[in-house]
């Protein structure tokens, strides 16, 4: 039994509003659990602090430095017409009359200033933003990217990492994307091409609050999503009530269990030791299979 859709590749993003709800635990365990049955690509898209690699023991296959493109001002060509500042939606280019200031950390690499400059005075130049690593153990291909210290923008690196994942997806691959937390641009980039989204939450007021934001985001993106309720047994019934009222499916509940936390803290996978966890993974696999 392999998981596939009509294109032969299924992409699942594991996301959450709140951080620390169990995205990485779920992503790594799901990848390892299903890797006995089919080709798996696990990508850690939380490029600000990737940690899936702590749980997946694999060999490094490939490593590359990742670049984004930033305009570089060439003084001798510039006439200070100011078009660059006008077309920039991100306030990353400032015309100061006798000099053009470029703010790389505000730049979204859209090329508008560079392409529209009548003098060609803002050619795009490569700027290092991070490193991509590709590991494999024959069963799991694990890909992670990490932003360099001081880099502020996760989106360009997430986008390029997804391109890399696409290039390395073979027929009948199941792609599992470990998304960053929250609801801002990096999450949207990490989830926008996914076929299905698993929103992991915990049954607490904080979990519920951030789940609502995540649900709103996924609805705006018009995504198919379901909820995985982790640490079931703590907190209150708020998440369950909210999901029921809003017709949101909770496809699996993972009981709160000290053993899970202990295994996680040691960098160990959980599913081998916890039958309740395995059952939850089975239910998630069934859901991924549904059309």
């Amino acid at each position, binding site marked *: 039994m392999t998981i596939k859709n009509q294109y032969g590749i299924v992409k699942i993003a594991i996301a959450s509003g709140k951080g620390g709800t169990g995205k990485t635990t779920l992503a790594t365990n799901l990848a390892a659990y299903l890797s006995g049955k089919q080709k798996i690509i696990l990508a850690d898209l939380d490029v600000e602090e990737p940690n899936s690699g702590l749980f997946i023991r694999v060999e490094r296959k490939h490593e590359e430095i990742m670049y984004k493109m930033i305009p570089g001002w060439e003084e001798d060509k510039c006439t200070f017409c100011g078009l660059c500042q006008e077309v920039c939606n991100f306030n990353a280019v400032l015309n100061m009359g006798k000099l053009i200031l470029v*703010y790389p950390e*505000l730049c979204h690499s859209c090329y508008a200033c560079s392409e529209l400059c009548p003098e060609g005075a803002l050619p795009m130049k490569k700027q290092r933003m991070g490193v991509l690593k590709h590991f494999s153990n024959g069963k799991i291909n694990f890909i992670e990217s990490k932003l360099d210290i001081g880099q502020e923008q996760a989106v360009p690196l997430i986008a390029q990492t997804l391109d890399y994942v696409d290039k390395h997806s073979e027929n009948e691959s199941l792609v599992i994307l470990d998304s960053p937390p929250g609801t801002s641009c990096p999450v949207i980039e990490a989830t926008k091409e996914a076929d299905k989204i698993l929103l992991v939450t915990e049954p607490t007021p904080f979990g519920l609050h951030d789940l609502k934001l995540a649900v709103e985001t996924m609805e705006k993106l018009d995504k198919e999503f379901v909820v995985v309720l982790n640490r079931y047994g703590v907190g209150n019934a708020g998440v369950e009530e909210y999901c029921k009222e809003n017709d949101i499916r909770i496809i699996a509940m993972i009981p709160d269990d000290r053993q899970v936390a202990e295994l996680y803290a040691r960098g160990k996978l959980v599913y081998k030791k916890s039958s309740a966890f395995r059952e939850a993974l089975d239910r998630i696999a069934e859901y991924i299979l549904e059309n």
Partner: protein
Amino acid sequence: MKIAFTAKGPNWNSKIDPRFGRTEYLLVYDTSTEELKSIDNRDIENEAHGAGPKTAGLIYESEAEVIITGNGPGENAARALEKAGVKIYTGAEKMKIKEALEAFNNNQLKEYN
């Protein structure tokens, strides 16, 4: 000389806006004509990022040589203002515009650098 203020409103009785980039108004006083010009900057609310450089750009365009504000600009805006040769004075956050001008004239504001 032109002196700019970050302001909560459009006239001499308005309070200084303590924020630099996201100031609601920019007021520019021309000492030669004694005119106070008001620039409505409230659209800045819609900018997710880069409010500082954007407001610094407006100050550059206004030809002000001095900006009087509250908390002071962030790093990005400060860099732009420095390049434009604009002097920054901070600590006027509790004053009205007219009081801030007086304080500036009496050397009671702190130069930011």
